[in-house]
Every structure is written in structure tokens, then in C-alpha cells.
């Protein structure tokens, strides 16, 4: 029986503190025969390399632009790393720069950090998520809400601020109704899928979006709408609007079974015919909000503009 996963934060004060704390965490892992992975920006990776010296060669590295682009890819990177050596425990340092994230992306990152406690619970992995202690309070709050331990001077102290992940996820799944100025279409028929894809293309023209982003949005909207048509009830509506720094494609259906806050955070464990849609949408757009209430089930797909 392997020990449960741990999910710890490090609130670091400057580069030297960062390097010594993460370096020690990784070195202890290497000495215990664990595998090690760093997902971080190049400057952070470089600091860790200098700290570890020759031991750095033992550490796998995934650039943050890959691991967090899109953000939910981070789960996949960790799971693939863990799965590559069954039975061997892994230590992972995971950090991305939060300053450039849009507000909806930060909401999604809150979900990602809190849900990690549940998603990885049964995996043999120790996750360390460093946060710069000088970040604004609302970003440091993510660290304090989502990690049950704080790495201090070589040992982990319990975090009294830690919040129940399901409660955090419930708070973050409140339905945001479409604004008054949204364009709304009834898409209750299967044949509407093709029409909506045409609409994604035509409405994207003139926005200066990369063709790859538009293609990904077409696919993401199709998957969200397909779920609504298959699992939800009529009417199925698509609202389109701008919000803050994102362009929103918002799929609303008349409701169905309640959507689990953990739905679509991971791909199906084994290949199957169905069950990829919501997970895939999270790999295709900047952020995805899922919520349900009396007005039905709402999936909001955000594209950066």
C-alpha cells in the first residue's frame, strides 16, 4: 500500500529561498529513489539546476508554456509522468506565472489547484506548488485555499487556511447568466452543430484570432453543444458575448443530471467511445466554467482576445 498523495505549497521570499527550498525537496526525493519532475518557467528551472548541480540531470523538466498551455494540460503531464514508472513515487514542482493570466483563467486555476487534492489523492505523488509570497493577496489566497501543507524550513507545517476542495469547487461553479447584450441562438437540433461551427468561423473573422485558435474553438463549441444535446434537455441555447478580456461562447441547456465538479478534469482512464468532450474543451480554450441551477446547465468557453 503506497502512501497517499501530498499537495504542499511553498511561499517563497526571493530567488535564493525558492532555489534552496525546491532544491531540497527534489534532492530528498532523489535520495529516497523517487522520480522527479519540474513544471516551471525557464528562469525557475535554471535556478533549480544551479542549486542541484550534477543531480539536476536526474530531474525531468517540462516548460510551463507546455505544462500550463492550456492550464489543464498540467494534470495530464503529471499523470503521464506518474504512469511511466508504476510503483515508483514521484516528486513534482509545479509553478506557472500568474501575473499574465486573465481573471477567468485564474478562476480556472483555483479549480485546478483545489481539485488536485481529489484527482491525485490515490496516486503516489508529492506535489509542491511554489508561490511568490510577494504576489497580490488574491493570488496567495489560491495557495492557502488549495494546499493542506506549507513547506517551511525543510518540514511541512499543516495549513489552517486549507479549504475543503469540494466546497471551493462548489463556490466556483455558480452560474453566470449571459449579459443582456449577448447574441443568443436556439440550437436544439443536431443539425445546428454545423450551423454553429459556421457561426464560430464567421464571427471570428475580423477579430484577428489565430486560425488554430478558431479551429480549436469550433471543436470546443461542438463538444459543449454535443454534451448539451445528448445529456441535457431542450431548449439548448448558445450565447455569444465579450466579457472582461475574453470572448465567451456559452452553452446552456434545460438541465439534466447534476454535473459533478470533477467531470471532465481528466480524460477517460481507458480508451472509450464517449466521455472526452468536456475534458477536450478544457484543452482547447483558455478557460471553461461549468455550473448548473434552476435555469439549466451552463458551460462557458472563454477565448482570449
Amino acid at each position, binding site marked *: 500500500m503506497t502512501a497517499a498523495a501530498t499537495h504542499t505549497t511553498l511561499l517563497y521570499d526571493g530567488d535564493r529561498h525558492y532555489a534552496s527550498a525546491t532544491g531540497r525537496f527534489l534532492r530528498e526525493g532523489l535520495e529516497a529513489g523517487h522520480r522527479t519532475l519540474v513544471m516551471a518557467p525557464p528562469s525557475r528551472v535554471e535556478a533549480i539546476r544551479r542549486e542541484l548541480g550534477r543531480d539536476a540531470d536526474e530531474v525531468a523538466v517540462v516548460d510551463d508554456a507546455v505544462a500550463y498551455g492550456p492550464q489543464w494540460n498540467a494534470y495530464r503531464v503529471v499523470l503521464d509522468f506518474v504512469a511511466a514508472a508504476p510503483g515508483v513515487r514521484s516528486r513534482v514542482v509545479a509553478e506557472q506565472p500568474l501575473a499574465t493570466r486573465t481573471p477567468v483563467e485564474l478562476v480556472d486555476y483555483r479549480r485546478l489547484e483545489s481539485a488536485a487534492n481529489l484527482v491525485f489523492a490515490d496516486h503516489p505523488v508529492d506535489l509542491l506548488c511554489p508561490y511568490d509570497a510577494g504576489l497580490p493577496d488574491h493570488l496567495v489566497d489560491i495557495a492557502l485555499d488549495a494546499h493542506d501543507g506549507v513547506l517551511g524550513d525543510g518540514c511541512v507545517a499543516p495549513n489552517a487556511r486549507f479549504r475543503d476542495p469540494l466546497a471551493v469547487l462548489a463556490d466556483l461553479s455558480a452560474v453566470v447568466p449571459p449579459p443582456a447584450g449577448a447574441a443568443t441562438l436556439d440550437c436544439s437540433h443536431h443539425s445546428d452543430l454545423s450551423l454553429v461551427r459556421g457561426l464560430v468561423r464567421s464571427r471570428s473573422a475580423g477579430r484577428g484570432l489565430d486560425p488554430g485558435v478558431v479551429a480549436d474553438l469550433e471543436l470546443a463549441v*461542438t463538444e459543449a453543444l454535443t454534451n448539451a*444535446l445528448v445529456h441535457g434537455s431542450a431548449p439548448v441555447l448558445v450565447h455569444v458575448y465579450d466579457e472582461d478580456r475574453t470572448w465567451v461562447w456559452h452553452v446552456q441547456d434545460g438541465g439534466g443530471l447534476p454535473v459533478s465538479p470533477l467531470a471532465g478534469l481528466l480524460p477517460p482512464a481507458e480508451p472509450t*467511445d464517449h466521455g472526452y468532450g468536456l475534458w477536450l474543451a478544457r484543452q482547447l480554450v483558455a478557460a471553461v466554467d461549468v455550473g448548473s441551477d434552476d435555469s439549466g446547465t451552463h458551460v462557458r468557453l472563454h477565448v482570449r482576445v
Partner: protein
Amino acid sequence: MILGSHRAAADLCSLEPGTHLCALEPDGAQLDRVAATFVGQGLAAGDQLLYVASAEQVDGLVRRLSESLDARLAVSTGQLVTSSFELAYGSSSPDGVDTMADGFRLAAHQAQKRGFPGLRVAARMDEIAELLGSIDEVTSWERTATDLQRELRVSSACLYDTSRMAPGDAAVVAREHDGLAPAIDVAPIATFLAVDEPWGVRVRGEVDLSNRHLLHRLVLSRATVTPRLRVDLDRVTFADVATVAGLRSIAAALPEGGHLVLARVPCVVRRILEATGLRDDRLELEP
């Protein structure tokens, strides 16, 4: 459009196999359009189509179909089969009904053996009254056909030229059908055609919840005949994740020695394969 029927025009995309439709029109040109719609949508859905008509009517149909799909390919693979009325239904009563029923059974069986999920038949009925002798015999045959087609899961469109019928007969004939075969100009968003060499399927257009089951059943039918097949995706402009996942499942279930090659894979399918990591030993990607 039609006399004495309360039935609405059928939606050919979601046509339940075994549906017995008719068209009753006073002019041949409109019947040509109905035939082209029925045959074109059936071919696009991957079924085998039998068009019973004169040589001239067949030529007209192939010309019209070529505007929206590769009708020559369909003819060369036998996905589109044509026949004169005499060949299909015989030329002498009183064996007419039995001969026609035998013809249906044989054709339905052949369709499956040749790797098609189903058979649909469009038939110009201009000579049926002559063959069977009276309108009573015609309605009796149509009634038999309704049961037979349900049993064999063969859909059909019986195309009647009302200018050649006695007043009142059209209403009598209409009552023996499940609904009206429509004439519509809108092409389906995708076509799924059989290919013989190399054995497989050619897909073009967009594949999603509305039509992916049609692709999967055609691929399955082809795989049942020969479990080594190539799915040409060159003209695919969209596919959703369940389309790709379904093809992987079909590949994974192929018998020993079988394989499913995805050829000329478009960006959207590559994106899905990369993101999901969906793969299988029997699913091959042709560069």
C-alpha cells in the same frame, strides 16, 4: 403535392431502415428531383442504392448526383446499382409479386455481403400497373412491400407519375406508404462512400453527432467483409472527438491481422488524436 395523404415528407437523414415512401407527381422532372434526393442522401449515408428506371432516367440521375458527390465512384463500386424495371421486377404477371419479393430479398442480402450497412431502393413505377394488371394488384403489392421492407430493413421511394394514373388512384397508392419522399436541394454535411481499391471508405465534409453513426456503421460493414481497410479523410473539414474515438474502437475490435488505416488525416483529426492520445495497434495513420 399529393392527394389523400395526411403524411408529412420524410427526413431522409434519420430515415428508419424499412421505411416505405412514395412520390406522386404529375411531371417527370419533379420525380427526377425526388429520385436524386433519395438516392443522393442514401449514398451519402453509406447505404447501397438501387435505382430502378429507364436508361435515360439513370443518366439524368447520375448527372444530377455528380453535382454533390462522386457518383462515378458510387457506380464503380456498386454502391449505386441501376436496373430497368423488367430486370428488377420481371416482365410477366401473374408471378409478378413473388418475383418482385424474391428480387428484394436477394438485393438486401447482396448489399450486406458487399459491405454496405443497408439497401435503399428508388423505383420509377410507370410500368407497374401494366405488369400487375390493375390498380388493385398494385396496392396489394405495395402492401406486401411495406411488410417485406420492414422485415428486410430496406427503405424505398416508389416514384409514381400521376399523369399516367386514373383519377383517384394516386390517393389509393399513397395510403400504402409510410410517407412522402421529399425533393430538397440541400446536400448532407458529409458523404460516406465505399471504395473498393484499396478497400475502405471515403469521407468528405463534416462529421459530428448528427451523422457520425452513419460513418461508423459503414466502416463496420466494410470491416465485416474485409478487416483491413483504409478510411480516406482527405476532404474532411470537421470531425468531433466521438467520431475519432468510434473509429479507434472499431479498429481495436478488428480480428487478428486486421487494421484500419486513417489516410490523408486533416488537422482537426490530428489535433484530436494528439490531445486525447487515442491510439491502438490496429489503428494506423498514413502520413
